[in-house]
């Protein structure tokens, strides 16, 4: 086991964790923003897949990294807008609609892949563009930290930054305030003149933007090709990460870090004599466990709040004639 431990405590491992968590942070933030707005978007998997595909294709046919980036982002936003249209205008159940979007993305990318390249597996026949790696001048010379933090793909840094951007967007901008208001109580938001549908549509489009960046990283950074269904459940693990992080930027980041570490661990353990099937299972088992633990915690907290509220009610005011208006208000807000 000791060579394994050695490799886990090496800076390579830290580097690998950041690499693996990049395609989780983006979609996790993408999910968080929709959950905050009350329109749970579970089609991140499909959004990532579409953007990963169109990024590679546009990049290969135009030779321009910028156009590839734009195409990927546009397709992601378009997916979000489409889901918004189905849900908000056509009254599709958002879960079923998103399942259909995922299915569409999986089929459509393979379909076009075949039509464009004659291959149904991957775009290995195309010359794919890759986003550049960034070596940060001062940081890279710091012994261990430099090895871990420097030399990553530009999108990895974008992922770390996007958690901060997400924070400002949600807590410091009018749109963020509206998103939170709409998610907490759409009727109340409507009553103060917020256009609920529009805010939810924006949230879905932003979600598409985040998902697109995750997808672009997968096919033009993590690897340099598009392969069918290459997201391999990352869009779903990301949802678990966002849920685990309470849809907040720091929590989501930490949850993505956790899943990233487990994933990287699974790659490293491969050198040990354990059947590969069991190793590949680890991230998914970890997700189920984390999901359960998180749910237990939330439930306990909720119970505690309830108990405290009851105690407070009991302590304050004479029990014979509680002020009816106040009692009503408390009931409504809990």
């Amino acid at each position, binding site marked *: 086991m000791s060579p394994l431990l050695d490799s886990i405590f090496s800076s390579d491992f830290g580097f690998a964790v950041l690499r693996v968590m990049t395609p989780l942070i983006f979609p996790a933030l993408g999910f968080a923003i929709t959950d905050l707005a009350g329109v749970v978007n579970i089609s991140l998997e499909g959004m990532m897949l579409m953007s990963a595909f169109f990024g590679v294709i546009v990049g290969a046919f135009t030779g321009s990294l910028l156009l590839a980036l734009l195409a990927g982002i546009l397709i992601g936003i378009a997916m979000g807008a489409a889901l918004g249209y189905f849900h908000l*205008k056509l009254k*599709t159940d958002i879960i*079923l609609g998103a*399942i*259909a979007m995922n299915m*569409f993305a999986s089929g459509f990318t393979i379909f076009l892949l075949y*039509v464009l390249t004659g291959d149904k597996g991957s775009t290995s026949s195309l010359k794919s563009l890759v986003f550049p790696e960034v070596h940060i001048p001062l940081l890279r010379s710091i012994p261990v930290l430099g090895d871990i933090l420097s030399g990553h793909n530009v999108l990895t840094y974008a992922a770390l930054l996007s958690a901060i951007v997400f924070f400002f967007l949600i807590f410091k901008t009018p749109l963020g305030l509206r998103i939170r208001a709409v998610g907490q109580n759409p009727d109340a938001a409507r009553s103060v003149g917020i256009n609920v549908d529009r805010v939810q549509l924006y949230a879905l489009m932003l979600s598409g933007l985040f998902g697109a960046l995750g997808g672009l990283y997968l096919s033009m950074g993590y690897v340099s090709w598009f392969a069918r269904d290459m997201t391999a*459940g990352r869009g779903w*693990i990301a949802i678990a990460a966002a*849920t685990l992080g309470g849809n907040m930027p720091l929590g989501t980041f930490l949850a993505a870090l956790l899943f990233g570490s487990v994933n990287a661990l699974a790659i490293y353990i491969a050198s040990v004599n354990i059947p590969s099937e069991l190793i590949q299972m680890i991230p998914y088992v970890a997700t189920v466990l984390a999901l359960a633990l998180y749910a237990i915690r939330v439930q306990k907290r909720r119970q505690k709040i309830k108990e405290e509220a009851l105690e407070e009610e009991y302590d304050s005011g004479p029990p014979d004639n509680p002020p009816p208006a106040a009692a009503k208000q408390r009931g409504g807000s809990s």
Partner: protein
Amino acid sequence: MQKFILRNFTLIRTLIAIALGIVISIFLIYVISETPGFSLKSFLIAPLLSKSRLSNIVENATPILFCGIAIAVAFRAKQFNIGAEGALFISAAVGTAFAVSTSMPIFIHIPLVLLVAAGAGAAWGFIPGFMKAKWGASELVASLMMNYVAYFLGLYLINNFFRDKEAGFLVSYRLPESARLAQFLEGTRMHYGVFLALGAALLIYYLMFHTTLGYEIRMTGHNQGFSRFGGIKIFKIIILVQVIEGALAGMGGMTEIMGIHGRFNWQMSPGYGWEGIIVAIIGREHPILIIFASFFLAYIRVGGQSLNLLADVPFELVTVIQAVIIILITAEAFLGRFKYKLTVNEAKREEAGDESLA
């Protein structure tokens, strides 16, 4: 006529959605195929002309039907457990493991193997069900993760303990004859599993619409708070529907192994659990309608295969069409204005009728 349309509006809307899906596929074929006429023929007509393709439809429809009714039970209670795929895979692996390591007379062996498979599936459904009922964890995400766990665990089980090393590829040992479902038509692979599936669909229909439990399941889906007040044990229902889902999906996987392959030979997850979601939606979560939906889906999938094989259009055309059909069917406002107009017209006519009578 208007009254008839109004009464069967959802059914007609579903048929229109399917028709639109097919129109779009015809359009796509015309765009990309060099021989569109031939492609179209191999897509829509070829499946109906040969005996082997017709039997392919029946074979395909069998596990899809099992998964479709399985998912419908959970969806009816508004439990979005999409773990049928995983339940099917792990059940087939566990059932195979059980079948190859035991030997019994056929009339005990077959039901026992099916029971073991259903048990494995039920256990698989229980986990997300319990997590949801007890702690409120999302069954959607949990069941999805469980799909991946099932896939790797199933492969681990078969590849490490029950692998037939004499076969040149990764498969399990052959099932003993006593655990095989017979094929009933010479020259095809159609097996008695299809009757099990049809029987299960009828049983679930009875359960959902003619028993108290079925009523409780449906009420839980309609309004959980109200059901709780009415004395329905939500905790039990949430777990039970997912256990039933897993068990049924598990039977679907096992019958496929017992009837067609005779050994566990999946290296990829076969995807029947996903198709089950599609037919559950097309069939509006109604077991009898899901029977028709399963055969329809099997028909366009066999069409897609022959399209892929004979013509120059990839199979994934079918996946795209499926997505379009689902979106149209679940879009409640699709044709909403048309329905509104019909309703208004009908009301006006009735009013006029009343006046003329008066």
